[in-house]
């Protein structure tokens, strides 16, 4: 293979799918922005003012960000031990990985409705708690932030397991042995070698899950109920029920901005954090 190949029309065709995708992306983003900033007579920030000045909407922003952060942290914390287990149990790794991924075989909507069955006031969990006499009044496990966090964590945990596992698998096979010969206990080896080397994977998981969660629609609608909206579910309502496309676009632009800024912030934290551990 030579480095410079003659350009041929056939090869230019290969670029076509990319161009189509890019084109669609920019057209839709342009559409989004023109809708968001549009007004009857030109450009304005009207819809943004409508959104940002209302205190109930500010609550939605705060809920979206804080819940997503909780979901991200919770997912990483819960999946780290799972990833560690999969890493250790070499023989069972593939089987267990399938178990971790099985929820993805079921549609998101179905799974989320499944949580209704579990979390409702007369659901399985409250039923068991009442039956054992631990609680007398059913706990409010859904139609609130808790329900959303539970649902989203369940949906997003496999991302974290895969991301952390892949960084564990990238650790050279006998670093642990080497650490042991140099005098480290198993815990010291974990803390000084395994944990720092798997941190990039954990942080990637944190970022991916945060971004996935911040744009969630279905879970907040089903498990949050009418009173606990996410930005995503609010956009859905503006489009599907109030038909206010301009306002929906403004919401979307806000969400985009939040995602983008959080990504920058999280990346900065990641650099700082992983830097200090070395």
């Amino acid at each position, binding site marked *: 293979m030579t480095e410079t190949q003659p350009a041929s029309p056939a090869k230019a065709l290969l670029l076509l799918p990319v161009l189509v995708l890019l084109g669609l992306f920019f057209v839709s983003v342009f559409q989004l922005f023109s809708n968001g900033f549009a007004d009857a007579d030109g450009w304005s920030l009207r819809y943004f003012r409508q959104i940002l000045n209302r205190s109930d909407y500010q609550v939605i922003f705060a809920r979206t960000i804080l819940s997503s952060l909780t979901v991200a942290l919770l997912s990483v914390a819960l999946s780290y031990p799972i990833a560690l287990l999969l890493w250790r149990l070499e023989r069972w790794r593939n089987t267990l990985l399938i178990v971790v991924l099985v929820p993805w075989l079921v549609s998101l909507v179905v799974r989320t409705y499944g949580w209704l069955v579990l979390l409702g006031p007369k659901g399985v969990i409250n039923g068991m708690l009442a039956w054992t006499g631990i609680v007398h009044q059913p706990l409010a496990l859904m139609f609130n932030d808790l329900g959303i966090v539970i649902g989203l964590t369940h949906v997003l945990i496999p991302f974290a397991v895969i991301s952390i596992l892949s960084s564990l698998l990238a650790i050279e096979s006998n670093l642990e*042995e080497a650490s042991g010969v140099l*005098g480290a206990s198993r815990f010291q080896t974990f803390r000084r070698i395994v944990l720092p080397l798997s941190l990039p994977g954990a942080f990637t998981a944190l970022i991916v899950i945060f971004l996935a969660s911040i744009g969630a629609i279905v879970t907040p609608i089903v498990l949050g109920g009418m009173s606990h909206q996410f930005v995503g579910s609010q956009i859905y309502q503006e489009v599907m029920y109030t038909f206010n496309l301009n306002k929906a676009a403004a919401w979307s632009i806000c969400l985009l901005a939040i995602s983008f800024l959080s990504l920058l912030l999280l990346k900065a934290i990641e650099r700082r954090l992983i830097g200090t551990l*070395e």
Partner: protein
Amino acid sequence: MSPAQPEALAPAAPFRAARGSIHVAGVAKAYGATTVLTGLDLTVEAGTFVTLLGPSGCGKTTLLRLIAGFIQPSAGKIAIDGRDMAGLPPQRRPIGMVFQNLALFPHFSVEENVAYGLRLRNVPETELRRKVKTFLDLVGLGHLGNRRISQLSGGQKQRVALARSLVLEPSILLLDEPLSALDLQLRKQLQVALKEIQRELGTTFVFVTHDQEEATLMSDRIVVMSAGAIQQYDTPPAIYSQPANLFVAKFVGELNEIPGRIAAVTAGTIEIDGPGGRHALPASGLRGFSPAAGASCVIGLRPERIAILPPDADAGGRIALPGTVIERIALGPVLRFILRCGEQRLVAVRLASDGAALPEAGSTCRIAFDPADAQVFEPLAAPAAASFGEKP
């Protein structure tokens, strides 16, 4: 620098002399039905450079990992510094180890890699800095302490791995084929460097390799292993000139094998039917077996022990056979000859400086050797090594 004694390892005087010694007694290792080691006895004197040499699957790495404590023997005992190591994990043994893939910590700098073991031992910062510097200087990396591991060349990584182990001043340093991934030039450099460092520190080095040249170059003593057993344990010259059996003779150095049959055994002499008739060889050439008349044997000749004479020359008391020069290859300081003697193919090596007197390819010649240079071996049994595996 003198190998200072860490407090924990400085017991009473009689043991002090034995610091760095290894005693392996009756050590066997089996994984299920697979025997990997068959009951080894080995004593390594303190301060020696010992190489475990053998083909892959011979059990040399298993023996190293047993000494390190990564695995426990199925039978037998291992003592280091005169202390029984039974049941002790690697971190409680007075050993260091350099791994085949080096296993450097990629998230630490060079300095922090070397400091790792000292930090675990809570060595005060000033002493830690001093020691790290001393040992980085020792391996010639004093100027690269702040580098990241990914910024180092292969040879530099070797040196970091070495310093990381040596800074803890272990009684014994175990090296598991650490040079195998390097190119020849660098490998040769590091062989010399390793040997020099070992001599300077006086630490016992146990080095695993399958490269007989490397073993010969570096070692005070070589353990030749095959099929899970020790074939010979001796100095490199002794192993070359007095191999214990045909396996060792073939594995260390080059050997011409001439099949023969023992015709008669008398005091001091064996008579062998071989190419060119019956030859009387001194019994001192017998290697590790007591032959009986009628048994088949192998006459072994090192290439440099074969003389090539003109067809009409006088052999001068040596055994001489008619032959042909098939090839004459100049290899720098030596000439390598491929000869044929009847059906037998032989390799001979002569000094290039004697080349003028030696025949060209295609010419007939007399192939001569001193009976005292001939070694007589028992033929190798059918590959007994088949049932031995490296590791499950």
